[in-house]
């Protein structure tokens, strides 16, 4: 069925760009789900019910990818023939590697000294860094159409995202203690 082969953007009737109105994304997703969710077809025959499940699965997948900036950027890179391949391609600039090491050391130190303020400070730094990465990805994808650069930004985003969760867990553990 052709609906299943569409891109996530086309499926939800949105322009294939990084910059996207989150409110509109959510609204569209809800409207599509309301129209095709299998619960709408509880009394229909097996064929319609099965198709509804496939489409609802498809809608969830599209929404899950598009609402997450990192996944959305990676998906755009892939659509444009430049897959991120985060598992195999771990190349990063030496500048960013040094940055990573510094952050890791700060986390380690804050943990050891139970320094809640330092952790909060680190979280703020990461938050700022995420904001600048968002801007970088938007520029590369929507303005310059420079997908290799966008891929590079996506890999850094993935690191910051994951590291940010580690910091949050450490901060919560400390706050609870």
């Amino acid at each position, binding site marked *: 069925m052709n609906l299943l082969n569409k891109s996530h953007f086309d499926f939800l*009737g949105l322009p294939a760009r990084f910059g996207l109105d989150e409110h509109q994304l959510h609204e569209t997703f809800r409207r599509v789900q*309301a129209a095709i969710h299998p*619960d*709408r077809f*509880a009394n*229909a*025959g*097996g064929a*319609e019910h099965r198709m509804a499940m496939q489409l*609802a699965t498809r809608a969830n997948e599209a929404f899950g990818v598009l609402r997450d900036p990192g996944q959305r950027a990676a998906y755009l890179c892939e659509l444009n023939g430049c897959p991120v391949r985060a598992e195999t391609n771990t190349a990063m600039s030496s500048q960013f590697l040094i940055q990573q090491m510094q952050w890791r050391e700060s986390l380690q130190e804050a943990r050891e000294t139970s320094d809640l303020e330092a952790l909060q400070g680190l979280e703020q730094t990461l938050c700022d860094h995420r904001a600048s990465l968002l801007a970088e990805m938007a520029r590369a994808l929507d303005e310059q159409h420079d997908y290799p650069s966008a891929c590079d930004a996506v890999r850094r985003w993935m690191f910051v995202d994951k590291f940010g969760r580690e910091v949050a867990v450490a901060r919560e553990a400390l706050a609870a203690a």
Partner: protein
Amino acid sequence: MALLQISEPGMSPEPHQRRLAVGIDLGTTHSLVAAVRSGTAEVLPDALGRVLLPSVVHYSDRDSPQVGQVAWECAAEDPRNTIVSVKRYMGRGLADAARHPSPYEFVEGPGMVRIRTVSGERSPVEVSAEIIRALRERAEETLGGELSGAVITVPAYFDDAQRQATKDAARLAGLDVLRLLNEPTAAAIAYGLDQGAQGTYAVYDLGGGTFDISVLRLSKGVFEVLATGGDTQLGGDDFDQVLVDHFTEALGLRALPPDDLRRVLKAARLAKEALSDQPVARIEAVVAGKACSLEVSRERFESLSASLLERTLASVRQTLRDAALAISAFDGVVMVGGATRMPMVRQAVSTLFGRPVFTDLDPDEVVALGAAMQADLLAGNRAAGSDDWLLLDVIPLSLGLETMGGLVERIIARNSTLPVARAQEFTTFKDGQGAMALHVVQGERELVADCRSLARFELRGIPPMAAGAARIRVTFQVDADGLLSVSARELSQGIESSITVKPSYGLSDDDIARMLQDAFGSAQADMRARALREQQVDADRMLEATQAALDADADLLSAPELADIQQQMRDLRQVAQTSDDPQTLEAAVQALARATETFAARRMDRAVQRALAGQSINDL
């Protein structure tokens, strides 16, 4: 060709026929059935006006099993044959079942533990089916007709095996399951629709044997579950056990025989309930022929059970983290389950969230009421144009596959919105390898040994090829009920579905048929009559659905396509009226299903395009 008669969208040509559909809350300690009658959901009482049916089944060697209050009265006298809290054993193996103290004799069974009773070995599915059957009979008497379907609630934290077992139990009780619905989500429906709420809510559900916490966002008729967590082995029963332990320790009683233990347990439960309203209560029970009594203060009870309460709060905190929400983001907290009557529970939860909790609806009834509303919606009983709602629930536990070295490769992450699917490619290890085994586990840990083993699927019929040449794409699909199905396809030769997938648990249709036969002791003729009846219901439903689809969207079909579908409908009607062979009828239903497949696809496409254009179905 005759002119087509097309009625207005939403207007059925025939007077609207109401389907009898109920919501069933299959609880650990008690169960309920509810239905929407004249627009309002209400719980259905038995002939004596009792709403709660104790989830107890008593087996004897003479009569058919007793269910409910009468069975509960046998608990102390005949503990081994009186099955209480059977929900704890649903979809569980012997090791899990034996973890809790109980008077039963467990036997390892296929996929699930079995309980040895005086009337033979019983699986938890069969025991649960007795409870559902009793509720079904109650509903059919009250509503005056045969039920067309039911929504059955399950703890949100139930895994795939527990869900499958619940669905099997309902089928065994002769019910068509419209949907398995998570208990906290059911409660949210009852509350949300009652109060027209919008915003972010937490549902804290402490039942007899299970604990769930769900975080939902309610907006414009969509109930979106953001995260869920819990513990399927923690509930009000455990608070009773705390008092039992306290009683036996304080009085120096050791290793009580089953009948004494049951009496103490009953007394402990009464004392626990009393402590919700009064500062002091007594546990009084006859032990070893002697009357024993112990006074317990609420304060003492609360300090004894503090660690149980804390376990629920830890789950709540974890779930808030999963939902990435701060306490301040919440617009309300709903309390569900009889155990939330304990003042300490209400107090602790309102302290954690920094706001008073909602307790307006009866915590015992709210789940069944929400399930009844959902059943009414799914049965298609709501008038066209009325405000319908949509549930988007999540999978509570991650699904993974065993890889080399006993490690888990995660395929579907917990809290993914349902339905969800994930495809994974595999290849063969040896030349000419014709089969492959997949071990699916559910849980959050890294090691297979620490997760719940769900199923071992065998893929058979892989065409002979050199090692590593076959490319087998396995798709894991979890439906809206949270149930997993696995399909496989060999890609290098494009042989679709030549590979069979066989799960190692769950009941096959043959199992169900055999159990039904056991239950009714009936002859083949009865089975056949039953199968025919089921096919007739299917045929009617299919005809009705197809007619409704034609009424709405016949313009999507060319004249020959339309003529073909109409011919198939006439054929099916003909067969339904004349044939008494279930297989012939099934074939005719299938033929109509095939004939409407393209039509269904076009209708779906139109529905999506309309949704994208900003029209809801209700506007049309």
